[in-house]
């Protein structure tokens, strides 16, 4: 059974910010399909072992306190920007002013 339709694939690529050339779509879809088909057995394995094992603990995020601390490398990090203006990263205009 196919896991992904062409429309879903195009939507997925757009959401991932990855542009796939029209000619490459069938080949990339096929390779995705191969992995998804291979892994589609996993829910059955869960069912097979459920009586023996507890479910894994829920994923939790671990954050340190959000505290401002002195940072000496601002210039070094800004220097890595593809485009900068003073202390800002430059991106193309998002909203045009009227």
């Amino acid at each position: 059974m196919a896991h992904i339709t062409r429309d879903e694939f195009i939507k997925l690529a757009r959401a991932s910010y990855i542009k796939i050339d029209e000619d490459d779509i069938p080949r990339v879809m096929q390779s995705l399909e191969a992995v998804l088909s291979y892994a589609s057995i996993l829910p059955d394995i869960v069912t097979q072992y459920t009586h023996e094992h507890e479910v894994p603990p829920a994923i939790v995020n671990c954050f340190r306190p959000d505290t401002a601390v002195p940072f000496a490398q601002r210039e070094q990090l800004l220097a890595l920007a593809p485009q900068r203006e003073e202390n800002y990263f430059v991106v193309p205009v998002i909203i045009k002013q009227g």
Partner: protein
Amino acid sequence: MASLEFASIRDIRVFLERKEISVDELLDFYYGRFAKFDKKIGSALELFDKKSVKDRTRSETGLLAGIPGLIKDNICIQDRTLTCASKILAGYVAPYNATVIDKLSAQGAFFIGRANMDEFAMGSSTETSAYQKTVNPWNAQRVPGGSSGGSIAAVAAGLIPWALGSETGGSVRQPAALCGIVGSKPTYGLVSRYGLVAYASSIDQIGVATRTVYDNALVLSAIAGTDVKDATTLKNISAVDYTRNLTGKIKPGLKIGVIDNALHADGVDPEVAALLKNALKEFERLGAIVEYVKIPVMDYSAAVYFILSRAEAASNLARFDGVRYGARSADAHTLSDVYELSRSEGFGPEVQRRILIGNYVLSVGHADKFYNSARQVQHIMRAEFLKTFKEYDLLFAPVSPAEAFPFGAFANNSLQMDLQDYFTAAANLVGIPAVSIPCGFTSNKLPVGFQLMGPDLSEELIFQTGYAYEQVTQWHANHPEL
């Protein structure tokens, strides 16, 4: 003084101590090896200026004083270029040191250059590098394995005595087996990941490539330990000398469980299986109790690995957007273009494929079937492995189903390439340590290795056992003719 060509770190330390060679002469020797042979091998993406290498060390004493190594190009060395073998990071300069670099530097180590790798550590042959091809030193028509192919090939070719790689699904052990050297994947959390560019954070771990078990244990002694900069390192891990039990004898009464469903899995080359069985006979001669055991859930480790690694990769690689660092497309005229074109031009096809799979398995409607199921099976796998370790001290399994394969062998079958991780991914998913050790050659004169896996923090026992095997077999004394 014996030849330096394939000298171990252990021997080099003696040469330096006896002043039979100076640190400068040693550096000159390895730069000379790279100059002579790396055009053919292609292991290094960059060799650093020799003077700057010497000037940057923090200590003239320590476990690795004056001994140079090669660093996989996904581990940050401050003020050095770091690309992860990807175009999207072309020109990126690391603003800080990874913790392992600080630790090695404190032990006097030199970092001679950056090792080639599969792009963002995604691959099993080093063929996905955006920059260059790395060949297997035993046969230039064959891949070195991956993703740490540059690190491993350099060590196997005697260009350098040690290297760092990284593992997510077997990326140190698999190339180590295919190139005939020792490759380790420590317990998850034993070695800090701070400064390692993330692929799948919950299973990534830095590993060590060397030509001998002793050397591997020595380098791990230098890099292991709790790190306040990495919340996933294990707590209260103090310095351990992993060489201290390397006596040449195994632990009395050692029980080794051979994972039957791995050794006898479909697709394991009969020649490889025969070499692994010879290794088991050696362990019996050394006094180990060797028994076969089944861990059926291990058969699904590749499936679990495919889902969890791609899901985490999709999340981790979302940061590469062409805004703050890395390459930006020259054709981008809108913010959306900046993201889409920069990522499409910057990431290679394998990385793009893994991001797409990752976002698919995390998406509404599919996460339960794929991502959540994979996590549950991972949890089951850990429970099953830990249960098995109540019966056995160590587990034995193949690393790779076959010898090193020719370039392009899986160009039209990405799933077969992905399945090169079939036997190695379990240790990553379960979080346990595993070490790949050479155990002979196929009729094509290509190396084969086995892996020993142990429970959490059993590195000492694995090294002790592997060292005893190495001393009676001497496979490590074989080297490729370059």
